[in-house]
């Protein structure tokens, strides 16, 4: 089977290869992480309780406030850091934080990247390629973990309304 390659609109950092941790949920270092233990700690995050250390995080959208701009730098210094962050959509804070930390980040795909990359797959994230790209090297053997499922009910939004983002 030909390797699957997904081109991104923007990226920074160096090429990394690692195991993908995938969910259609957001990312904020302050809101979502226990940065001491290196796990997702927000109870209603789809990855709650899972370690992010050394993983290529493939998530939907940058969330939350401005603290992540500092926190990625500190996480990197303490070695409690993902290998890379791949998002459908970024906010400026993620970009600023990745720039300070020298962190590999990639965003903006033609498809929903959280649906395209199987959880547990080995992926290669190459910001130096033209265009920047994510390549699935090998898929996970664990088909049951292909997509993360919700652990807690989301906060209600008005009935009958399509969630955006």
């Amino acid at each position: 089977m030909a390797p699957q390659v997904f081109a991104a609109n923007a990226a920074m950092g160096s090429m990394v290869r690692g195991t993908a941790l995938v969910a259609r949920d957001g990312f904020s270092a302050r809101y979502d992480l226990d940065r001491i233990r290196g796990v997702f700690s927000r109870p209603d995050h789809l990855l709650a309780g899972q370690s992010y250390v050394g993983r290529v995080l493939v998530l939907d959208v940058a969330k939350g406030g401005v603290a992540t701009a500092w926190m990625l730098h500190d996480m990197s210094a303490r070695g409690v850091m993902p290998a890379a962050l791949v998002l459908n959509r970024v906010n400026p804070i993620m970009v600023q934080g990745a720039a300070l930390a020298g962190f590999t980040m990639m965003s903006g795909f033609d498809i929903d990247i959280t649906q395209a990359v199987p959880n547990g797959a080995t992926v290669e994230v190459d910001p130096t390629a033209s265009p920047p790209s994510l390549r699935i090297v090998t898929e996970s053997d664990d088909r049951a973990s292909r997509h993360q499922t919700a652990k807690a009910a989301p906060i209600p939004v008005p009935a009958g309304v399509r969630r955006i983002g």
Partner: protein
Amino acid sequence: MRLNEEERAILAGAQGSARQWAIDHQLRVGRYLGASDFVPVSQAHIMADTESLGEAGVAWLERMAALPEPERRVRIPTITDPRGTDFAAAARLRQQDWMLALERRAIAAFEALGVLMTDTCINYQTIMPAVRGEHLAYGDTGVVIYSNSVLGARSNFEGGPSALSAGLTGRTPRYGYHLAEHRRANLLLRVERTPRALHEWGALGGLVGRLAGDYWRVPLLTGIDRVPNSDELKHFGAALASYGSVALFHMEGITPEAQRARDVADPGLPVTATITETDIRNFLAHYARGVETIDVVVFSAPQLSLIEMRQLAQCLDARRVKVPLLAVTSPQVKPDADRMGLTARIETAGGLVLAGMCFYQSYAREMAEANGWRHLASNSAKLTNILGGYGYRPVLLSMEACVEAACTGRVP
């Protein structure tokens, strides 16, 4: 990105290594986000509590602070967001010595850089409100969304490193909300019931934030039937920015760029949702579900205005709290609250008034562990949203209900 002669010189190191680092950082950010050039900014606002900075971030600041003075001083008014403690009350919060030491080091570094230690997230109420069209580099989401939306200023979310960079270079990459085309609404929402209390404004902000979902959505709200005051828009905006990472909203007939919906929205923009009283009630109920007792009550995020301090003092008159009640305000409001007897009224009831910090930026996880706090009541939707990840089980209540919870230890 196009650079002018001065910017090329800064990048070449002609103005020292601090400014050289700063403009290089800004270039990397600007290129990623599609900026074509820089825009001069008149103020910067730095979020830099030491829980976020960590030892590595403080050491990084100290290296910059050790540079020769002409190289390291910011060149535009540059102010700070809340710090990670109120030194006068740190022992009562059971914060640890290493936290205070880290805070002192960060403060010393910022002072060496020429930063004004305002330690506030309500600078738009207390320091120097922005002016419509003014380009800024602000670094607290609540400050950005209020300045953009209510005051008509122009800023993106500028995290600490980028806000400091703007302070050093006097400019920021021109992308996002510095550009008129990004300020147009792309999400139209109808509000059936205008909130009454601050926590309801926060709940509405949370609902809109959930619907918006990311930074590049600009909601336009119709149906708000009266002009909200500054505290109401403060809570609404802070929650909207927190839940949705949103940096700009419009309210038809209220915010300056949206006197008419068509001023900011295309005629064909569909109404995505109608937000009802039931939606707000369900939002509040979601947090209250299964929580009966309360360990701590916190008024913070954003810091309280003088008006909120008076409201709280009135609620606490002739009452006595049973569980800790923390009221967090700015260093600018605190002396007025002292002078007008508001601090004394709150503390006579057993509350604790804190200044210059914000609860979630002050080692909230460690405070929870040290004090045995898990069930927390607040009237701040922003605080409620953040603290789940810090191990709390927060409940969003009115100010009056929070005071009742503080006096009984139970959710009313």
